[in-house]
């Protein structure tokens, strides 16, 4: 595989496995190791907690009943395993990026394309999903404040009984405009968002527990273990974001000890809150009533207290914080596509940067148009499940990569090594596979189609225009040893 004859045309296998060499001088070096355990843990909590919890219960409790709390625990364990594996991969690659870049630098171009397809689900489709969730809480807020909400026909996707989800579309467009202008989220705003999210969730727990009715827990696991597994995939959506901790490795003090601790601690905090929310929710409301509920958490609070204000406060908190999440995930999506444009696997339009705003404007427009179409016409459950499967698959690839690399490049410099090797990555892959299996078949179908489309595009266009095709000297395929 690595006897590349420079003069002859590379074989297909060689092209698919060519690895991008990353010169650390490409990016701002001088990242000081300054992040300690506390800060890293808080970052993990801030990146993870959040949006999914506001609407996954509606779609997943009907699958598992009150036993959904176990789904949360399993999803948390899975998130932890995958984050640890991801941390090893990220630490082996000396520069920042996404799992697409890491795959490109370690497994080769073909694998990177597959991961990229998954990332388009993890960011792009995720943006659409949260935009739809946002529209639910917006309507609830409008209803509570003004006694009026948008008519059904413009509040729901066709599958959910409407024609188009207009608020979701508008949110995406609005975020697009902000991104084009170069608006960003400052560290302080980000911190405030996290506080709002945690605040309203804690409020939910505190108020919702007053409606605790043990009778609602009597039929705890109506679908048994199968139901719990089935729901885990959808619940996993609430844990996406923890991998941000994994990419911070270069700046963390004593990463070998700090990273796993921070990941575990952050997970403990987040899972405790989520489990509490879920438990309070299923104790306050019979599990059968979750199906089809909008702005579920707000509604439960209103039912429990018989008053509007808790629901209003929660809805307001959700509207504010979910807006911020939509902005960040859309932003992330544009930057990943930008990198792919720079690598040549996507057309150059994706890497065109406006000189004044220093933002990739055509790229952003394309992303926002596609995402708003998804947000407008695809139901929330479908979007969330698709996001989950993409994320899980990418993590599975990453976990496999960890194992593969230990064999092919054992001497590669790794500032963090996953504890419990080889058990951890193996468990991680297995868990991903099992959980993916529990997702609806239609999700899997769409996912397979989507990856197929991405691969077809790659083999017909990307493989010829890739920078590594045009500049083979930038590949780093070597028999063994460190990446340059």
């Amino acid at each position, binding site marked *: 595989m690595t006897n590349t004859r420079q003069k002859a045309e590379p074989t297909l296998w060689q092209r698919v496995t060519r690895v991008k060499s990353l010169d650390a001088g490409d990016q701002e070096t001088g990242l000081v190791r300054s992040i300690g355990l506390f800060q890293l843990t808080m970052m993990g909590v801030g990146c993870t907690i959040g949006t999914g919890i506001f609407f996954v219960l509606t779609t997943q409790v009907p699958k598992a009943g009150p036993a959904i709390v176990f789904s949360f625990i399993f999803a948390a364990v899975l998130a932890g395993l995958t984050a640890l594996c991801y941390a090893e991969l990220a630490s082996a690659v000396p520069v920042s*990026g996404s799992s697409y870049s890491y795959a490109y630098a370690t497994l080769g171009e073909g694998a990177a394309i597959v991961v990229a397809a998954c990332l388009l689900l993890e*960011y792009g489709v995720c943006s659409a999903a949260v935009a739809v969730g946002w529209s639910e809480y917006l309507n609830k807020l409008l209803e509570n404040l003004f006694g009026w909400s948008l008519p059904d026909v413009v509040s729901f996707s066709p599958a959910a009984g409407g024609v188009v989800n207009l608020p979701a579309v508008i949110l995406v467009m609005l975020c697009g405009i902000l991104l084009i202008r170069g608006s*960003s989220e400052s560290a302080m705003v*980000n911190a405030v968002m996290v506080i709002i999210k945690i605040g309203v969730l804690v409020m939910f727990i505190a108020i919702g527990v007053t409606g605790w009715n043990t009778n609602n827990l009597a039929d705890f696991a109506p679908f048994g273990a199968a139901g719990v597994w089935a729901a885990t995939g959808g619940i996993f959506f609430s844990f996406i974001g923890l991998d*941000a901790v994994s990419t911070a490795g270069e700046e963390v003090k004593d990463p070998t000890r700090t990273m796993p601790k921070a990941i575990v601690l952050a997970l403990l905090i987040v899972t405790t809150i989520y489990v509490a929310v879920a438990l309070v929710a299923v104790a306050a409301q019979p599990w059968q009533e979750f199906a089809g509920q909008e702005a579920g958490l707000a509604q439960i609070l209103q039912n429990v207290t018989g008053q509007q204000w808790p629901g209003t406060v929660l809805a307001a908190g959700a509207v504010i914080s979910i807006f911020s999440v939509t902005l960040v995930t859309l932003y*992330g999506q544009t930057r990943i596509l*930008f990198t792919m444009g720079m690598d040549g696997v996507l057309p150059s339009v994706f890497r065109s940067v406006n000189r004044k705003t220093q933002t990739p404007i055509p790229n952003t427009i394309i992303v926002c148009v596609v995402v708003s179409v998804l947000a407008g016409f695809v139901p929330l459950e479908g979007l969330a499940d698709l996001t989950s499967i993409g994320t899980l698959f990418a993590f599975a690839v990453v976990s496999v990569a960890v194992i593969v690399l230990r064999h092919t490049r054992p001497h590669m410099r790794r500032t963090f090594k996953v504890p419990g090797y080889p058990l951890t990555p193996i468990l991680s892959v297995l868990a991903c596979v099992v959980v993916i299996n529990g997702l609806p078949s239609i999700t899997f179908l769409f996912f397979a189609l989507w990856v197929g489309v991405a691969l077809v595009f790659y083999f017909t266009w990307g493989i010829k225009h890739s920078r590594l095709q045009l500049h083979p000297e930038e590949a780093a395929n070597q028999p063994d040893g460190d990446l340059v």
Partner: protein
Amino acid sequence: MSIVVGYGPQERGREALELGKALAHSLDESMVVCTVVLDRWQVDGLARGVDRQYQGALTEMARDVLDDAKSALAGENELSIDFEVVAGLSVAQALIDEAHEREARMCVLGSSLQSRWGELAIGSVSQRLMVSSPVPIAVAPRGYRVQPEGRLERVVLGVDPERPSEEAALAAAVLAADAGAELHLISFATGEKEGMWRRGLGEVERAHLYQEHAGKLLKSLAGTINGHPSLPAVASYRVLHANGWREALDKAEFRRHGDMLVVASSNAGPLEQLFLGSSAMRIIKHSPVPVLVLPKASLHGEGTAVVDLDEQA
């Protein structure tokens, strides 16, 4: 001390380089040519890793832009020139920060202020810079080029008779001294100011009174400057009467090469500036020669002309 030159990725930044060159030669200072990369997403969030990667790509692009600057300045062997990519929340902020770090004598800007019609145009970012910058800001007109070995020959201080600034005058004098240039004082009597100055008088009388007032002021300022042994004598001072700023600046008969106009940025509050506009901005807009703006903050901070003078005296 050095001169920070802002070189922009949009349009040509050549004007700034040329002006920076001339000033560096005249003042015997080093140059730092900077291209700014906007680094706004400073969050620890989902997009953290990809943001870093994106910033890296922008920095690469900025380096390519700086390469153009390098080739433009290739022949300047006598000057000490650094080239740097700087990151910041805004162009203004990044340049101010760099000027701070380098203890720069002034910032030089070019194409970021250019309008399409050969005039100097001020955007909102630059306006903020004009007020809050701790160092003076030199703005080059579009298409500005210096002759080989071109230097500063005349420093012309524009004085606003309603807000005369002794600190600005002294700063201009110090600049002239350091550059070995002549110092001239000028005041503009354009129609609009006079209208506000005295009511109830006929137009001709108003104009006459205003010019008299301005003339006295200039004479007094010249006297103050001439009184300092280490400063150059004021070569001339005059009040120019014209209808509107464009005519006034035409009448001043600036020399395209070697002249520099110095103005103090307005002491007016932001609201007043917004609605009435300040003289400084008007002058900058119509000036055919480079303009050095002395922001309020630069006249009262450390290492300013006044402090220097005290040390020299």
